[in-house]
């Protein structure tokens, strides 16, 4: 069992900063797999494990590899939180992850905004198609057309955590999910300054 050995105090902080992960930057740290809890509330743990398996398998793999070094392994009963409370918190965090991620979408020229749940889309393609569907009564052209030779009629942009307006599609989907606060479909002429259009 670990714990008896001492190691440099600064290591833990430095370890995280220099840690190499196979997951993409900006991905949320997946739930640490619960350590062996012999008689804890079975239901919560079962649910936790089931939700785990639904996640992207490559994420789980990268997490498991990260956990192999002793410093990162789970210590039984530490920090000292009673299983009842720990399970409730785990359920709360899962809840937060599974409840929708609603963002407002505005479109230039449209009289009202829409709200969409980003979590239901698997990637940019579905997102574009959904937006086109939603705003088709307003648009004069296609939003999702992926023709590089033409300038798009419209550009989908989003506001990120820092307050900057970015073009949708540049960053990996997961990173987009964690940084997008709201979206705006702007006319192609205005979007020119935002960089290359995928």
């Amino acid at each position, binding site marked *: *069992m*670990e*714990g*008896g050995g*001492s*190691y440099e*105090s*600064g290591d*833990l902080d430095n370890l*995280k900063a220099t840690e190499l992960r196979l997951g993409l930057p900006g991905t949320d740290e997946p739930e*640490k797999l619960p*350590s*062996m*809890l*012999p*008689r*804890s*509330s079975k*239901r919560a743990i079962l649910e936790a494990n089931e939700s785990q398996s639904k996640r992207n398998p490559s994420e789980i793999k990268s997490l498991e590899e990260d956990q192999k070094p002793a410093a*990162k392994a*789970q*210590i*039984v*009963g*530490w*920090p*000292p*939180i*009673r*299983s*009842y*409370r*720990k399970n*409730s*918190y785990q359920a*709360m*965090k899962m*809840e*937060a992850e599974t409840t929708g991620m609603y963002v407002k979408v505005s479109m230039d020229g449209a009289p009202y905004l829409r709200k969409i749940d980003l979590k239901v889309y698997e990637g940019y393609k579905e997102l574009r198609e959904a937006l086109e569907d939603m705003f088709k009564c307003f648009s004069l052209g296609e939003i999702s057309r992926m023709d590089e030779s033409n300038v798009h009629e419209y550009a989908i942009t989003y506001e990120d955590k820092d307050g900057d307006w970015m073009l949708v599609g540049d960053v990996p989907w997961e990173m987009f999910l964690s940084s997008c606060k709201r979206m705006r479909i702007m006319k192609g002429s205005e979007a020119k300054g935002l960089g290359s259009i995928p």
Partner: protein
Amino acid sequence: MSEDEEDERGGGEGKRWSPDLIGGREGGSGGADPPPLSDQVLENVLENVLQFLDSRRDRNAASLVCRSWCRAEAQTRRDLFIGNCYAVSPARAVERFRRVRALVLKGKPRFADFSLVPPRWGAGFYPWLAALVPAYPWLERLCLKRMFVSDDDLSLLAKSFPSFRDLTLICCEGFGTAGLAAIAEHCRHLRVLDLIENDVEEEMVDWVSRFSTTSLESLVFDCVGCAVNLDALEALVARSPSLRRLRVNQHISVGHLRRLMARAPQLTHLGTGSFGDGGGGGGEVEVADLRAAFAASMSLECLSGFRDLASEYLPAIYPVCANLTSLNLSFADITAEQLRPVIIRCHNLQTFWVLDTVGDEGLLAVAATCKDLRELRVFPLDASEDSEGSVSDVGLVAISQGCRNLRSILYFCQRMTNAAVATMSENCQELFVFRLCIMGRHRPDHLTREPMDEGFGAIVMNCKKLTRLAVSGLLTDKAFGYIGKYGKLLRTLSVAFAGNSDLALRYVLEGCPKLQKLEIRDSPFGDAGLLSGIHHYYNMRFLWMNSCKLSIRGCKEVARRLPHLVVEVIRDKLEEDDVEAVEKLYMYRSLAGRRDDAPPFVEIL
């Protein structure tokens, strides 16, 4: 609930240990010849006086005066407290105390809460129940903590005591809704059914419909995981005019809550179920309607629950905030902004439990308003060593500056400084309980990079009333030197991942005369340290050590020198690579000798 609160009112050990007691008073009053008539008269007079004595400590002291006083005290003790169910045999307890009406019984060591004690270790309630049934037909109240209680036990309990009134189960396991149904049905005078953080089997029995009592005062069942019959619950609440405390589980939506509150406007303690608009039926509820329900419940002093919180519902509690003395938001994931409008209204708050998601900023708001705060607990939503951590030394200092009356604090954080802890020790002179958990193991002061020795040293030095201490962070033997030197009133000490050598353990065992409960994990203490406490172990309730540097030899030596100490070596796996090393040690004084229900993985030396 915990003894630290009791201690403030002068509680203490139920069976005061003294080796002399064994020789002189074997078998209690039943063993000796009947006293002469004059003594008997004196005893009767004494009984009339002693019956007014409430404090456990006072009673224990009185019982040591002489045999006559011991007998008289035993006859008048109504409330029996057994801090360790294995410290005395049930037979002996009921033999000495013949007229008990209320019993508190504690089982497993506290570290069992953190999965450090393997399942089936012990602390079964049945042996005690079997002794209680014939001995105390007039038993009224029972409180069990960390015991194994089966449905059959609850059923037998319910049918055996016609005057039974109060049942409190804390951190117990082994029972389910079938047992609860038996209690509900057969305890016709039930006033209190408090189920606190138990592991309840979900047997899908409709226990709420079975209540036969009309004098219900308190019903706490937030730890029961399965849904309850809502109509039955509402009917129960409606026919219970004495109901003052109601804490429901997550399956009760705000819609249902509103209906329940309408039936019981006289409630003083309310634990909500889910406080959001997710599922649960019961209809959607407007915040305004919910607010009206609270406005009609102006007796409320204590609020808890707030599961699945939708923050827009929080303003519903504004009408009662000014009256609140206790608020538990420790299951609500809220930010400082969401907390602020609530907390600024709670100027009478004495107890506050919260999640660290409110951050230092949230704690600042608490400190600014809650001038009479006595107890604060800050729990971490993400209980792992390398989580972000939103509260720190800043929050601690703020609390110490605003809440000078603080008696008890439990604080989980990732970053702390000696200066902050020292500041708290200077500002909060009323502290009885100081539990700081820096979640990263061996983590030093994050500004100076020094060990946390000085901070904890300041706590024991300045907080003269301190009885309970939990330490964490990077600590050397020096910290324990301080504890031994200044912790003269310390009764409970929890140590994890701390110290350099056996010296640390020696400092504590030699320096703290009042030490009762010592629990240590993952610290480099070995046999020498263990043996340095030989002079003191009979005065303690227990010592727990896991993942330290103990060996079988050292433990056997202790067992040899202290025959009335039960020394349990607990193994996680039966096949051991290193037979010499002791992974888990649990030792406690006992009049009952080695227990006969020890499982195979427990070796009693």
